[in-house]
C-alpha cells in the first residue's frame, strides 16, 4: 500500500513553503508524514542536515508527544517548539497525518513565525484536501 500526491500538488506546497517561510529567512522547512516520510523539503543550501534522520526523529518525537497528550486527557498538542542557542525547531501538525518542521535562527521572531506557519498550513490543507477525502 502506498499513497501519492500529484506534481501540481507538490509544486503548490513548495511554492507556499518558499513564499511564506523560506522568504521569511528560516533555514530549512520539511513537510513529513507521521511515518517519517518526507513529502517536501526546502533549505537555504547552507544547512546540510541529514534530512531523513531528522524526519524519522521528528515523527517519533511528535508521536510520543501525542501519546502523552492523550494520557493526560488532551486531544493532542498541535504544535511544539524547541529553543536552541543558535537554531530553533518548530513542529506543527498539518491536517491529521502530516507534520511541518521548521528550523530557524534567532533573527526570525517566534511570534511572526507562528503566524506565518499557521497561514502556510491553511494553504497546504487546501492543496491536500482533494487527496485526503
Amino acid at each position, binding site marked *: *500500500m*502506498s*499513497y*501519492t*500526491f*500529484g*506534481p501540481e500538488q*507538490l*509544486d503548490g506546497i513548495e511554492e507556499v513553503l518558499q513564499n511564506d517561510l523560506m522568504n521569511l529567512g528560516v533555514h530549512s522547512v520539511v513537510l513529513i*508524514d*507521521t*511515518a*517519517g*516520510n*518526507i*513529502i517536501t523539503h526546502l533549505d537555504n543550501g547552507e544547512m546540510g542536515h*541529514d534530512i*531523513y*534522520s531528522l524526519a*524519522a*526523529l521528528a515523527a*517519533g518525537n511528535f*508521536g*510520543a508527544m501525542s*501519546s502523552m497528550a492523550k494520557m493526560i486527557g488532551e486531544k493532542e498538542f498541535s504544535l511544539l517548539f524547541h529553543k536552541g542557542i543558535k537554531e530553533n525547531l518548530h513542529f506543527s501538525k498539518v491536517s491529521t497525518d502530516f507534520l511541518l518542521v521548521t528550523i530557524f535562527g534567532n533573527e526570525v521572531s517566534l511570534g511572526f513565525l507562528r503566524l506565518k506557519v499557521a497561514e502556510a498550513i491553511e494553504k497546504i490543507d487546501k492543496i491536500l484536501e482533494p487527496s485526503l477525502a
Partner: protein
Amino acid sequence: MAFINPKKKEVQAKIVYYGPGRGGKTTNLEYIYKRFKNRIKTDMVVIKTHGDRTLFFDFLPFDVGKINGYDIKIQLYTVPGQLKYDATRQLVLRGADGVVFVADSLTVRREKNILSLKNLQKNLTANNKNIFTIPLVLQYNKRDLEKQGIPILSLETLEKDLNSQLKVPSIEASALAGTNVALTLKNIISLTVSSLKKELT
C-alpha cells in the same frame, strides 16, 4: 505506508525490525551499516538506554537503487523489544510497509518469541494492518550459539511456534557474525518492493 513522489521519481518505504528484547534487532542494523557503508550517506540514529537496550528506535536510511525509473529509498527501523515499551513499539510500527521478525534461537527465549509475535499481530491490527498480508520475513537469529554448546531451539520448533500459520520466508542467521543478515534484508526488500511495484507506473 510508502510515499510515492512523482516529481522526484522517488519512493520512500519503511521496514521495521521487530522481536523480543535482546533478540538482535539492533545488531542487524549495526551490521548493515558497517557492510553497506558506501550506500549509506548518514550516521545510524540510535536511541538507547545506558545498558545498550533500545529505548525508542534505531534508524538507518538505505538506498536500494532504481525500479521502474523510481529511486527506492528504504527506511530501516528497530523497535525496543522490552515488554514495557509497547506504546513506543506501536508508534515505530506506524506506517510500516514491511516487517522482519527477529526471533531469538536461545531455548530459554522460546516463550518470549511467541509473545512478541502475538504483540506484533496486535500492534499491526492497531495500525490497521494485517500480519497475514503485510510483507514479513522471519529471522531465526543467534544460530552461532550452537557451536558454543549453548542450547538453542531446533528449526522445526521455531517453525512450529512461529511460522505454522504465517508460512512466510524464514532465514537462519547470526547477526553478530553477519551471517544471512544481508539475505534477510534482501528478502524483505524484495517482498516490500514487489507489493509496491504495481503502484509504480
